[in-house]
């Protein structure tokens, strides 16, 4: 017999426990694998979408003015030498509906107008099915494949543009765009049709927002010079990275959080293995002692234990890779159907899979290292003495584990960094550190916490509750780690839920602050304030329709110029306490200054970036125009959205008109009369919007819209967290099983004193439920800490307002933790209850 055989037999002797450990590792590796595959799928999608945004174009010019480029400019550009293609894209936000009837649906989305022939020169229409637009296709429209299927439509279905001229035929979907092409923009809420069709549908043509230019092979500086010299309109050159930036940021956040779950699951798996091996070593102390006495070296003993662990790790990791591929298929399916994150296909990156396998095997070995070393250190004499628990301090027993896990986490992060998946590493690492720290701390707070959380259980379960609680402190390291593992899974749910809730709160605040009264209309082309005000104010129930006079400007500093956006607002409309969150000056002073004129409110993010404070003077000008010096009267946390990421600089309507000559507005704030119900007013606003071929906005819709993709992701992450909870539950099954094995005699004594089968079951279930409850309490504390860290470390302005606690979720975590743990206790409880009394009494006599 070889020593390896002993390792095998050790595992086979306890099939259930071995299986649990393997499943634990497999689940952890599965989540990591799924994350790596999904991450790689999303990278691929991002690359392909980015490539399609500009296609073969060498240059994208974005119009600076809302009016866009003039058709004349396109003609001039096409006439230039070296210019092989100019593909103009016009844009307009429109309300679109399906054919009227019972199932009529209404959407507000971005409609892009292209010149089909010119566009074909710069990019291939990436279609899932159907045909591309042709030169004269007045009724044809391309729609994103997932938008079509999500809304129950199909190829050939008709769509109506709201506010379209009388007598125009409906549009027909002739092609389904792949989600990873042009359709990646706007979360896939867009339609593409011919520019001519778009322009002919309405009284005014849609502004041409950008031009994609193919300048032939190897365009030189001179060619680009010639192009820019031809342009009369102000413009900005946009790179591929600029165009893809909004797509990329969502991916990074997603991969980061998914990876956190993967690593959390993996660490849980390692806890499970560590626990399993510790139990095995504990049970087989005598056997190992005999081996030592017979001349087995301590290195050989170490080898036996590590070989067991390696077997678990290899099996678990291999299973995990397979399960991970299945899980990834599910995740990718979910993501592509909900469009929460851009994904394409099911790539199997060999390197990534190897990393997952190595991580699985690695954490298994590290998890087993502590028990293995304990086994190797056993002196033959010590092992042969009747069992006595080494009574070292808790910290002593946990120290190697703490160090080992931190090393694994660091190594894992390094590996991930090397494997090239883009993610903000630091917050993930810190979160993981916090979670593991919390798990290790579980052993220390177990006793006091069990005394508090145990109380309701003792009331409910009586003696069984008391006995169950006593059992928790039988082996505090073992129980602590088991509780800690469950805690990590639940804490991840708490952290995510809290961050999401806080983001939602932030979004609501933000939307409320920029849409006072909660309603607005956005028009594609700015409408003259004086001329159109009566049209807007004809809306039933409106108190006032307030135009936001917007204009692109430049911010002038020491001769340098930077693109900026200016919006003229009516201080009276925005002067309610939820509107515009002002900092840097008292609200009243800030508004007084704005009303008086010559003052500007600056978005906080801009102020922070370039170092502007209240009281400073800011030079603003129309491109090429006179510079106006405005006093910074206040900083706003959120400003009206504009072409620049920071949002618009805000001045009074009067200043916008008098200093910058703006008379038109593309955003109209619709303030309802006090007694008009919001839903009634929303309908009236929608009617006005349709009349004007414009988009109605409500604060509620906007908040939902902004939170939508977050909510979907949270759903997915909760599913991943559930896997982690399952691993935690396996740990509880494992630990309870060992605990019962250790006290068969005790249970027989209890039974002989009249404890019924049901009471024994209740005792074990109570013990399990208490573990779950303690895990839940710790998870809430740790999860909130992690959330606090993520919220305060995050750069997102939505989170600046701080934490908002998702109370129902916190309660649910406590209940689910307790419930799942109690369920996990059912099987061990049955085992305990079916133990024979007499045999277990005799065992020792």
């Amino acid at each position: 017999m070889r020593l390896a055989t002993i390792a095998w037999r050790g595992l086979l002797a306890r099939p259930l426990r071995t299986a649990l450990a393997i499943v634990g590792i497999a689940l952890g590796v599965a989540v990591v694998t799924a994350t790596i595959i999904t991450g790689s799928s999303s990278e691929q999608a991002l690359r392909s979408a980015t490539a399609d945004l500009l296609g073969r174009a060498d240059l994208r010019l974005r119009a600076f003015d809302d009016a866009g480029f003039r058709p004349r400019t396109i003609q001039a550009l096409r006439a230039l030498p070296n210019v092989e293609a100019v593909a103009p894209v016009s844009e307009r936000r429109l309300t679109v509906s399906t054919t009227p009837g019972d199932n009529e649906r209404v959407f507000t989305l971005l409609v892009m107008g292209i010149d089909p022939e010119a566009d074909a020169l710069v990019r291939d229409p990436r279609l899932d099915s159907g045909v591309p637009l042709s030169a004269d296709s007045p009724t044809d429209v391309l729609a994103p494949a997932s938008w079509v299927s999500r809304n129950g439509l199909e190829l050939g279905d008709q769509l109506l543009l709201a506010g379209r001229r009388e007598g125009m035929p409906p549009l027909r979907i002739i092609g389904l765009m792949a989600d990873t092409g042009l359709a990646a923009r706007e979360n896939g809420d867009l339609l593409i049709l011919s520019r001519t069709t778009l322009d002919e549908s309405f009284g005014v043509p849609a502004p041409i927002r950008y031009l994609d230019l193919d300048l032939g092979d190897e365009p030189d500086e001179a060619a680009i010079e010639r192009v820019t010299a031809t342009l009369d309109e102000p413009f900005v050159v946009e790179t591929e990275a600029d165009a893809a930036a909004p797509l990329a940021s969502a991916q990074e956040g997603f991969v980061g959080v998914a990876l956190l779950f993967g690593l959390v699951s993996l660490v849980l798996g390692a806890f499970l293995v560590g626990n399993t091996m510790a139990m095995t070593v504990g049970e087989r102390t005598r056997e190992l002692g005999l081996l030592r006495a017979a001349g087995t070296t301590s290195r050989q003993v170490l080898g036996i234990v590590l070989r067991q662990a390696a077997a678990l790790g290899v099996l678990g990791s291999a299973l995990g890779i397979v399960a991970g591929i299945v899980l990834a298929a599910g995740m990718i399916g979910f993501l592509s159907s909900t469009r929460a994150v851009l994904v394409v296909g099911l790539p199997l990156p060999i390197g990534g899979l190897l990393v997952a396998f190595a991580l699985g095997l690695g954490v298994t070995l590290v998890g087993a290292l502590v028990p293995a070393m304990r086994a190797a250190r056993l002196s033959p004499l010590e092992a042969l003495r009747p069992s006595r628990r080494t009574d070292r301090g808790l910290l002593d027993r946990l120290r190697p584990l703490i160090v080992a896990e931190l090393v694994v986490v660091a190594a894992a992060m390094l590996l991930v960094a090397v494997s090239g998946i883009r993610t903000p590493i630091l917050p993930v690492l810190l979160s993981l550190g916090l979670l593991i720290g919390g798990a290790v701390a579980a052993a220390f707070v177990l006793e006091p916490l069990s005394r508090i959380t145990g109380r309701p259980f003792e009331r409910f379960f009586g003696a069984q509750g008391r006995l169950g609680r006593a059992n928790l402190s039988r082996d505090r390291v073992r129980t602590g780690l088991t509780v800690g593992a469950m805690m990590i899974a639940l804490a991840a749910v708490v952290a995510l839920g809290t961050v999401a809730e806080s983001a939602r709160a932030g979004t609501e605040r933000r939307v409320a602050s920029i849409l006072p009264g909660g309603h607005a209309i956005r028009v594609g082309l700015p409408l003259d304030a004086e001329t159109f005000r009566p049209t807007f104010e004809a809306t039933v129930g409106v108190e006032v329709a307030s135009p936001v006079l917007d204009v692109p400007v430049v911010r002038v500093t020491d001769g340098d110029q930077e693109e900026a956006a200016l919006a003229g607002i009516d201080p009276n409309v925005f002067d309610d306490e939820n509107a515009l969150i002002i900092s840097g000056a008292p609200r009243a002073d800030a508004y007084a200054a704005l009303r008086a004129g010559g003052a500007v409110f600056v978005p906080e993010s801009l102020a922070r970036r370039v170092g502007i404070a209240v009281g400073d003077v800011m030079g603003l000008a129309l491109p090429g125009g006179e510079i106006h010096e405005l006093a910074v009267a206040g900083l706003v946390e959120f400003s009206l959205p504009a072409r620049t990421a920071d949002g618009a600089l805000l001045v009074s309507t009067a200043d916008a008109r008098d200093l910058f000559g703006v008379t038109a507005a593309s955003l109209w704030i619709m303030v309802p009369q006090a007694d008009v119900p919001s839903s009634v007013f929303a309908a009236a606003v929608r009617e006005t919007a349709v009349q004007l071929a414009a988009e109605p906005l409500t604060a509620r819709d906007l908040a939902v819209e902004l939170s939508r993709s977050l909510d979907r992701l949270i759903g997915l992450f909760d599913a991943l967290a559930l896997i982690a909870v399952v691993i935690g539950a396996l740990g509880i099954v494992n630990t309870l099983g060992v605990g019962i094995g250790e006290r068969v005699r005790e249970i027989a004594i209890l039974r002989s004193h009249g404890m019924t089968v049901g009471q024994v079951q209740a005792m074990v279930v109570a013990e399990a439920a208490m573990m779950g409850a303690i895990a839940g309490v710790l998870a809430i504390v740790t999860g909130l800490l992690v959330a606090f860290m993520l919220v305060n470390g995050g750069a997102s302005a939505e989170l600046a307002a701080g934490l908002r606690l998702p109370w129902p979720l916190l309660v649910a975590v406590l209940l689910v933790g307790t419930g799942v743990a109690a369920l996990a206790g059912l099987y061990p409880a049955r085992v305990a209850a079916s133990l024979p009394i007499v045999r277990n009494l005799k065992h020792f006599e």
Partner: protein
Amino acid sequence: MAVILEARDLVKRYPLGEAEVDALRGVSLAVEQGEFVAIMGASGSGKSTMLHLLGGLDLPTSGEVVIDGISISALDEEHRTLTRRAKTGFVFQFFNLIPLLSVGENVALPFLIAGDPASRHRERIAELLALVGLVDKADHRPDQLSAGEQQRVALARALATKPAILLADEPTGNLDYTTGTEILDLLWDSADRLGQTIILVTHDARAAAYADRVLVVRDGEIRDEIALGRRKDHEARPLIRRLAELGL
């Protein structure tokens, strides 16, 4: 005096591989209320098996056990447990205590198991601790006690609910002479002073000599019955002489 425990023709057969072992081959006995009976025999003679059947911990292959008028062989598992809870108290050779409960909690265990808050039985628990002389160790953990003290706690616990019958399986088997004597004195005291019915299983004639009556077991059968009567001196010599006469 009333019969409190009766066994009729108990047979216990254990499967042993292909074959079977007859641990008990037809045992009948009756114990009167307040009686102190010892069951004596060599190791493997079937004493423990008999005690387990008498206390309802296990079922006989055939035969019947009647405790305080209840035929426990006819009961289902649940009711047998409840009868055991109500009528019996057990003391085993060692590892009697729940290590994670304090001494006081261990003594209160029968109340806890019955769903009866220990707080309602504070006086009774104090009385029991006083009986076994461990009042000042009520808050200790079992592993902080000596083996003799642990057995005294086990005894206090077995007596807690004033059971109809106290069943003790080699309670002194793990103890030295002095501490063993302390336990036996306590047993005798509870029989004599409190009128406790006791069945004591032992292989030790000196312990059996505390009983009113000794049943001698061999190969799963009661071979003899020696009436000693209640004696304050617990003198073992008459019993030993009698056993010698029987060739045991």
